[in-house]
């Protein structure tokens, strides 16, 4: 075991540091612009949010410096301790946190308020790294998969109990890490399918064509298509794939003709029949080849059908009314310009009015007039869009992508599984925040209140993202040390 390298400055990845610095200062300037009023306030004024953010940034750099001095082994050895401490704090928060607009997630310690859920991310990432690096760990064993899933689900449950659904959602970013570490790609496909079926099911759920409920019929056809696709690519049974595709097209055309000329057909039943045929076909193949892949397809098809029929129920009964409206707004089913759609519509107006070059720094009117809610926190991307235009927004997205790509590159070059898993976690969390926050502001995703890293105002958020990143930098800087 070699001693720690003397000159850590040389082994730090300066690319990341530079991108980080650009992002936090761009964020700082944006916060100033978002809360600017044409009055007298200076960007350094501590009474304003920009002044406070500058203080948070200074402290974040200080924190980065401290993290650089920490012995790397501590992060791995103490990961379980950190993790269970954090779980304890999250649980305690539910009980002792004051109720702030329905959420119990802020711990008030004298003059400062912190949100423990923000700091849970890096601790959970460390814990996952620890688990994957443990002796003889094989992710394909169900037992280990359950362990890893439990590590992620425990904080999710606690954060949902704090009524911070948005923050809890971020933990689903770890699915990318699971995938990288060997989770079956089928899970990812199933997840994508679930989202797709949900969107189509809800969006066309109430549209009737003849006696056919459009949503259900479309979803069933899609399920059939995916089933056929799996026949082609998963079991590589090309022949049965063609046969099923043929049956599908034939039946659809026949019933289309019947529907047009003879009698009204409910295509939901046609879809059901098709899926039934596919299931029987796969079962026959299973009996013939004894390949469990066919059983997997059957499970997928049946589960998809059950899922698509429970979508309506879940949407109407499990989601709260404001969540339903947010989803309906982002699917373009509702305008609701006064309620849930108001924010998104105002955000779109602000961004859209920016044009190519934007209106110029501090010249945005939409954000100034406080039309856009949360303009210096969750909706800060609006200010960038309005004042810096398409150039500014694109630059921000590109910068984030470069950061994420660089993180993945660095993660892959690690010799230690611990650091690789941690690096992927960092990249995934940043990506997830970018995906949800920007997607919400530009009206592609429903309104979910999570911040844009380094841009949204707030000490807890900035610190948690900085710690997340700096720990990885620290681990990466020591990658040449004995970790084999």
């Amino acid at each position, binding site marked *: 075991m070699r001693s720690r390298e003397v000159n850590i400055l040389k082994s730090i990845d300066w690319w990341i540091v530079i991108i980080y610095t650009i992002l936090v200062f761009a964020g700082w300037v944006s916060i100033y612009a978002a809360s600017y009023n044409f009055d007298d306030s200076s960007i350094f004024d501590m009474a304003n949010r920009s002044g406070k953010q500058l203080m948070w940034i200074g402290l974040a750099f200080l924190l980065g410096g401290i993290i650089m001095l920490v012995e790397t082994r501590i992060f791995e050895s103490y990961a379980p301790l950190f993790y269970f401490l954090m779980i304890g704090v999250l649980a305690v928060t539910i009980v002792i946190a004051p109720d702030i607009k329905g959420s119990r997630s802020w711990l008030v310690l004298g003059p400062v308020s912190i949100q423990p859920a923000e700091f849970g991310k890096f601790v959970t990432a460390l814990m996952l790294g620890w688990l994957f690096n443990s002796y003889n760990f094989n992710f394909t064993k169900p037992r280990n998969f359950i362990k890893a899933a439990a590590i992620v689900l425990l904080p999710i449950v606690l954060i949902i109990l704090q009524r911070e659904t948005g923050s809890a959602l971020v933990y689903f970013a770890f699915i990318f890490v699971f995938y990288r570490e060997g989770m079956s790609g089928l899970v990812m496909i199933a997840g994508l399918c679930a989202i797709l079926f949900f969107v189509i099911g809800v969006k066309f759920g109430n549209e009737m064509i003849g006696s056919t409920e459009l949503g259900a019929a479309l979803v069933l056809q899609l399920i059939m298509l995916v089933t056929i696709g799996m026949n082609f690519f998963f079991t590589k049974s090309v022949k049965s794939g063609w046969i099923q595709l043929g049956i599908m097209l034939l039946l659809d055309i026949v019933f289309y003709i019947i529907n047009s000329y003879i009698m009204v057909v409910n295509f939901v039943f046609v879809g059901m029949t098709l899926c039934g045929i596919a299931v029987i076909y796969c079962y026959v193949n299973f009996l013939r080849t004894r390949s469990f892949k066919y059983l997997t397809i059957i499970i997928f098809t049946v589960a998809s059908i059950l899922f698509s029929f429970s979508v309506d129920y879940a949407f109407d009964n499990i989601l709260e009314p404001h969540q339903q409206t947010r989803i309906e707004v982002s699917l373009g089913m509702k305008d609701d310009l006064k309620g849930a759609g108001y924010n998104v519509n105002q955000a779109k107006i602000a961004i859209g*009015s920016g044009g190519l070059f934007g209106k110029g720094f501090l010249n945005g009117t939409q954000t100034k007039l406080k039309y856009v809610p949360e303009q210096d926190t969750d909706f800060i991307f609006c200010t960038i869009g309005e004042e810096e235009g398409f150039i500014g927004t694109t630059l921000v997205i590109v910068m984030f992508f470069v950061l994420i790509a660089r993180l993945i590159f660095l993660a892959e070059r690690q010799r230690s599984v611990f650091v690789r898993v941690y690096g992927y976690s960092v990249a995934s969390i940043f990506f997830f925040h970018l995906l949800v926050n920007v997607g919400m502001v530009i009206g592609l995703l429903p309104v979910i209140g999570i911040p844009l890293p380094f841009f949204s105002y707030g000490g807890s958020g900035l610190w948690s993202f900085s710690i997340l990143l700096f720990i990885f930098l620290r681990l990466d800087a020591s990658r040449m040390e004995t970790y084999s």
Partner: protein
Amino acid sequence: MRKNYELEKRKFIIGGGMLLVCIIYIIRLFTLQILSSDYKTFADSNAFLKKTIYPSRGLIYDRNGELLVYNQPAYDLMMVMREVKEFDTLDLCNTLNITREQFDKRIRDIKDRRLNPGYSSYTPQTFMNQLSGKDYGLLMEKMYLFPGFYIQNRTIRQYKYLTAPHILGNIREVSKKEMEIDPFYQRGDYTGDLGVEKTYEQFLRGEKGVEILLRDAHGRVKGKYENGDFDESPTPGMNLTLSIDIELQQYAEALMANKVGGLVAIQPATGEILALVSSPTFNPAELVGRERGKNYLALTKDPFKPLYDRAISASYPPGSTFKLTQALITQEEDIITQNTKFSCSHGYVVGGFRLGCHAHASPLPLVPAIATSCNAYFCASFRAMMDSKKYGSIQESFDKWKDYLVSMGYGYKTGIDLPSEGRGFIPNSNFYNKVFKTDRWKSLNIVSIAIGQGEILATPLQIANLAATIANRGYFHTPHVVKGIQNNELDEEFTRERHTMVEKKYYDIVVEGMAMAVTGGTCRRAAIPDIVVCGKTGTSQNPHGKDHSAFMGFAPKDNPEIAIAVYVEQGGFGATYGVPIGSLVMEKYLKGEISPSRKYMEDAMLNANLLPQYNIRK
């Protein structure tokens, strides 16, 4: 080291997926920002200003439909900093009656984000609130001289009768905490404080409406959005009908003037409160308008504590009014019958213990014992219950006794629909175990509670509730001051009958005793011509000064229409102030006027001033 090259390829899938999302977002931004010009025009002309339209607050009526509280327009002077141009500052100051320094300070305060976190130079800020009608008139003539200043209409409460502040309550601006708890409230909104304004806030406040206006890039209002199709009109608050009889209330307040204490009158059949007085009282209009803060502070500093609602919050020793509960409990528990007699030798004497009593015939059965308020009778019967073998121990007999009182509304809040009700105090056996530091205490140690002294305490409301319960011969309704809410049913809690643990037949005997007290006992002054009155005096010892004077009663004896309790601090004998005030209020309610033979008593009560005798630190 483990490297799995099959898995390492997945970095391209993950990275590629993330790249795809970024590209989709950039394409979306391209369409939003460059391809579509709609949003630019939107931004120029289609920016919303959501303006809240405040509903009018519900009105408050008395039981006879007399309007008590209504709304009056008030005017706030608003300013939009960006739109203020050169103007004659001195002229504005003179019109508003303020100095130049005050003007400058106000502008500084508005701009100071520490004091005014939501400040924006584009949005209206309150410069001065609740202008008087006169200032408003003067200002409106010159408004065109002051660009950037606007008048915003609001409503404030007006009181038609300057009375009953503890029942009516008032309104004030919401606190930061209330805004956090209930998202309905915005900065500067009003909410009910004290009285029914507070308890019925949810009904009175109504639903806010919204008007959507369009503004241009400079923040100027350009008219309504979509001709107001998306506007929502406000829903006015619901009106309340109180059970209070405002005429009776004013009369009772006049009688209680210059005395410290409480008075509660209840309609026994319904539990509706007819009058509720806490004295000294104050003028509810003092808590309206710009002077509210100053007046409120003065009221909190007043040594007589007028804000304190003595009628429902103050705990007093109930004195001899409490003997009626003893008569009921010991009968129900078969400790005595109406024929049981106890002797009285000018007091209750056991060994060296002596509790005095006044001169009357002895021994007496229950009915005359009530009428003469014999201390010895109730001490003896109380001890007989405490020491009875049938309960096992004194602790168990005491707790049984306590349960009876709780069923009669003592020891806990009655649940009246007014804020800050007190619960009085009825101890349990555990309390005495702690006080005496042993569980071997004797009935003689606590005997004084049988006559309403010692540890037990009750609010005037609880005493009035006892009167109503006896008037009903065994049950009461939770006392309440709101009789009806527009379009709403009254809470079931206020309509159900709450029966005590004592049977009706024992109540009948107690009623006889109370009637006899008026015809030939301690409260002869309560008698009203042509009406059979039932009453009971109370004179409770006060270690800090003169005895408190109390009275409870109801009338008429059959089908009672009013039950009452009066408590005058340091008023001496019950018969001195309690009895006359109580009977006058009953007479006023039942007959509408005071009979000539009792005018002298009315004058004496109206003019009596006890304030100088109270030993209050100023």
